[in-house]
Structure formats: C-alpha cells, structure tokens
C-alpha cells in the first residue's frame, strides 16, 4: 500500500474497495458509521461495554461479508442489521423471556426521576422510560428498519407480541417526546 491516507468516496465505492481487501477503505466506513451502530445497540438496551463489543463484532463480520453488499441500500442500514443480529444472538433467550412476559420487564427506574424539561428530553432519554422489551422492539423497528415479522421470526415469538410491545413503546415515546415537538411546532409557527 503506497499511501496510508484513508480513501474517500461514496460508501458503495469504499465497500467495493473493502471487498477487494482494502482495510483502509473499510476503516473509513467504520469511522463513518461506527457511532450509528454503537448508538443503535445502546438504544436497543445494551450497556455501553456490550454495545461496543457487539459493534466491533458487527464490523468485523461486516468486513468478511462486505462482498455481499451490492449498494442496493445504505451501507449504514446494512451494517446496522448485522449489528442488531449479533446483539439479538447474544441476548436471544433473555429477550424472548422478557417479550413473552416470562420474566419481569420493569421500566427503567432512573427514567421516572428524570426532570421532564422539554430541552433535556431527547430520544435517548425518552427511551429510558420504556421497558426492555418495548425498547428493543421499537429500536429494532424504527432504528434498525426491521419489520415486526422479522423481529418475531428472529426471536421466535408471536408477531402480535412484537406489535403490542411496539405500540406500548410508541405510546410512551409520544408522551415523552411531546414537549419537544410541541415546542418546536410553536417555534415554527411563531
């Protein structure tokens, strides 16, 4: 390799270079999408250490499979799906028990004490108000672009269970995110 400067270009071009073994090109993709993947895993409920481990595993697996990425969708979405699958494999048993109600799935107690000042409420804060199951399902469907059926099939649970977790999660998020959105709307109209 003559130059150690990271290559530039569109994700699809970098992925093609990575598929040919260019690790610098893949490194640039990691730089571009690392935070999104780590963020999604945290939003799904992984603690920071596990989220980073899973994100790293996902990028390593992504490098092995990058030749399969044809640029039909965004690279970010592609690698996030790999990361979500890695995480679900890790927590599959626990997730299934939580989602089917076999073990207690309480709300995050720290979220209840959060001051509900509109300026402080953002998605990550709002997600803390959700139970683990709701958080997982909502994050997969809206952050990972998974369908309800995909979540149900992967976790081997009824699709109705997934839908009810998503609905309850959305109801809570609507309340938690409302002050911000209402404020933004007032600003826009004012």
């Amino acid at each position, binding site marked *: *390799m003559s130059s150690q400067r990271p290559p530039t270009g569109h994700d699809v071009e970098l992925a093609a270079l990575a598929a*040919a*073994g260019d*690790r610098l090109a*893949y*490194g640039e993709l*990691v*730089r571009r999408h*690392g*935070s*999104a993947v*780590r*963020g*999604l895993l*945290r*939003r799904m409920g992984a603690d920071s250490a596990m989220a*980073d481990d899973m*994100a*790293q595993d996902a*990028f*390593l697996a992504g*490098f092995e499979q990058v030749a399969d990425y044809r640029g039909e969708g965004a690279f970010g979405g592609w690698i996030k799906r790999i990361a979500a699958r890695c995480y679900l494999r890790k927590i599959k048993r626990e997730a299934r028990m939580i989602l089917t109600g076999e073990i207690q799935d309480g709300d995050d107690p720290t979220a209840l004490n959060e001051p509900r000042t509109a300026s402080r409420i*953002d*998605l*990550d804060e709002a997600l803390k108000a959700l139970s683990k199951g709701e958080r997982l399902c*909502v*994050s997969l469907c*809206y*952050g990972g672009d998974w369908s309800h059926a995909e979540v149900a099939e992967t976790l081997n649970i009824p699709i109705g269970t997934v839908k009810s977790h998503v609905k309850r999660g*959305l109801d809570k*998020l*609507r309340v938690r*995110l*409302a002050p911000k*959105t209402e404020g933004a709307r007032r600003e826009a109209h004012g």
Partner: protein
Amino acid sequence: MAEPDFESQLTRLFSEAPPFPDAELFAAQVAASLDRGWALRRVLIGGAGVAAGVVAAAQIAASRFSSELQTLSLDGARGVSADIDAALHKFNQLVATPASVEALWLVAGLAALALAFAVTRAMEEF
C-alpha cells in the same frame, strides 16, 4: 399528532447517531482487530504449509529413503562409484515418483497452501 407524522419523526430521530467522543478510538480498535485477524490468518496458512511440508518430507523419508540408505550401507562391498551411482539413481527415482498416494496428496496440499499464502500476500500488498 397524527401517527404517521410521529412515526416518521421517530425514524428521523433514530437516524441521528448520538455523538461519541471516542469515535476515533473505536475505529482504531476495529482496525487493530482487522489487522490482528489478517496477521493470524497469514500465520495459520503459513503454519499449515510448514506442517504439511514437514509431514510430507517425513512421509517420503520414512517410506523409502531411509531404507535405501540402509541398503546402501549394507552393501559396502560394492564399489564406491557404483554405490554412488546406484544411490543417485534411486534418489532420482524417489524424487521423480512420489513414495505413496498419501505423499502425493500431502505435496499437493502443500502446494495449494503455498499458493493461498502467496495470494493472501498479494491481496494485502496490492
């Protein structure tokens, strides 16, 4: 708020990655892991090649070469030049013809591994 509005807003919020102060460090860790994996792969391929070579050499030596040498030493009465000629002839035969099917496969495996190693190196370099 209408449900589709809220859902599209939620999708947009999810698409915004939270900032990570250690983003560069994370990228460096992934790069280091990739390098380690690559180096490990090279070592494994090289190691497998060496192991296959050693086994192949041992197979060849154990099958005929040592017995031929033994025969040579027992036939000390023969003339030195005749012995050398005979040994060279036998050795040439040995090199020209694999000692057994196993040895043939081992040598083929060794060649395949060496080729894989060369391709790996070439991919990395270019």
